[in-house]
């Protein structure tokens, strides 16, 4: 009974964290996509210096734990640049920059999986290389990448909990706050876990719908089943 009254009392506050957690996840996913795709194109079609720069970027952001990156940006990079952003913005930026490094490798594999003849045919019709990349390669590469890319959502969703360390009032932060007041560790963490599971399931359903929407006969690849 005590658990029920605690959940009733703190439930709305805990549920309020959903918007923040989803906000972090979706912003990071979008930033990762917007940066990851150009990074992948640069790695495949760029000059040697461009490819080297991107390799360093990927190596840096994939090589450090998310927590260290958060602290580096929260206490170092943002203040050094004179940028006074909220912890939420810094958290979403770091998750997005890190996600871009991972997403770039998913898209790079997708681009390289498009048959060489597709580019040849596009060039033979008088398209420039850039027109061919835009109209022929990217639409195919994205479809090929979708199953791998669908892993990014649960990855970022669960990673967003690390933003607790810089004080973003997301689900994990709120859970810890409620536990510290009520001392009911397990029920509150279980409630938090159930919310994460529900968000994960819901997000994967959306991705699955997107996969069905963009499916093309004869074009392989399906998103991970929720």
């Amino acid at each position, binding site marked *: 009974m005590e658990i029920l009254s605690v959940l009733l009392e703190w439930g709305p506050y805990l549920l309020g964290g959903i918007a923040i957690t989803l906000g972090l996840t979706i912003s990071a996913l979008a930033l990762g996509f917007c940066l990851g795709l150009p990074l992948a194109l640069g790695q495949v079609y760029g000059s040697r210096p461009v490819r080297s720069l991107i390799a360093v970027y990927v190596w840096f952001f994939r090589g450090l734990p998310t927590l260290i990156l958060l602290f580096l940006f929260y206490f170092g990079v943002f203040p050094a640049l004179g940028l006074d952003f909220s912890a939420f913005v810094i958290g979403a930026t770091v998750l997005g920059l890190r996600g871009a490094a991972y997403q770039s490798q998913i898209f790079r594999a997708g681009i390289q999986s498009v*048959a060489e003849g*597709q580019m040849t045919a596009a060039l033979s019709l*008088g398209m420039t290389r850039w027109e061919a990349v835009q*109209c022929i390669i990217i639409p195919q590469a994205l479809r090929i990448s979708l199953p791998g890319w669908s892993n990014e959502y649960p990855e970022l969703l669960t990673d967003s909990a690390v933003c607790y360390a810089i004080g973003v009032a997301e689900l994990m932060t709120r859970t810890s706050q409620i536990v510290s007041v009520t001392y009911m560790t397990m029920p509150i963490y279980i409630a938090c876990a159930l919310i994460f599971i529900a968000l994960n399931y819901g997000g994967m359903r959306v991705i699955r719908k997107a996969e069905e929407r963009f499916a093309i*006969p*004869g074009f392989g690849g399906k998103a991970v089943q929720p």
Partner: protein
Amino acid sequence: MTGEYILRVEDIHKKFNDREILRGISFNVKKGATIVFIGPSGTGKSTLLRCINQLTEPDRGKVFLDDEEITGCGSRISGYRQRIGMVFQNFNLFDHLTAVENVEIAPIKVRKMKKEEAHAKAMEELHRVGMADWAHHYPAELSGGQAQRVSIARCLAMDPEVILFDEPTSALDPELTREVLEVMKDLARSGMTMLVVSHEMGFARSVATEIIFMEGGRIVEQGSPLEIMNNPKHPRTREFLGRIEHT
């Protein structure tokens, strides 16, 4: 000599690593001509076609389209490629687009044609190759012969002056080969200038204005279908024709 030919190829050389694929190929093409290239595999026929539209850059030599040099023309090559269509052995249809979208995409993106106009043009070309009923099917839903006919329509939608056919029937069984060859024969009769790499000797006999036999990166012999098929002068041409007639 100039003005008489729509396409001139002069002394084309191409090496891959240390292997010399083309060793000085020269020939001229009159408007409306159909030239069929024959010869053993690995003799540079496909490389020659790719050197003409610069998908492969030749190491030496020149290509002229209507007296304009297209070799070493830099970014202007896209403009010339619009005038020289190409049909590939493996069709190379864009897998994410339907047949009609495959045909209309280049007119829309390259020639900046309005979507409705490009669609009408695409349907007209699909109709011409007998594929209008399959307009809304994806490449994976088409047979090899159908896919190749769509790829010919895609090429025609750009109103090319010359079409290069790189072994267009090699990946097809005899039945499907026949339907593609019929479309190519119609094109030849309509006055389209065509350069065809093919071992379809029946097609060469009935449609070609000239046959070029290549071996080892060189032109061994060239002449009319009658000359080459009934009275080949070079022993290698005789040997090659003898072999393919018995297969």
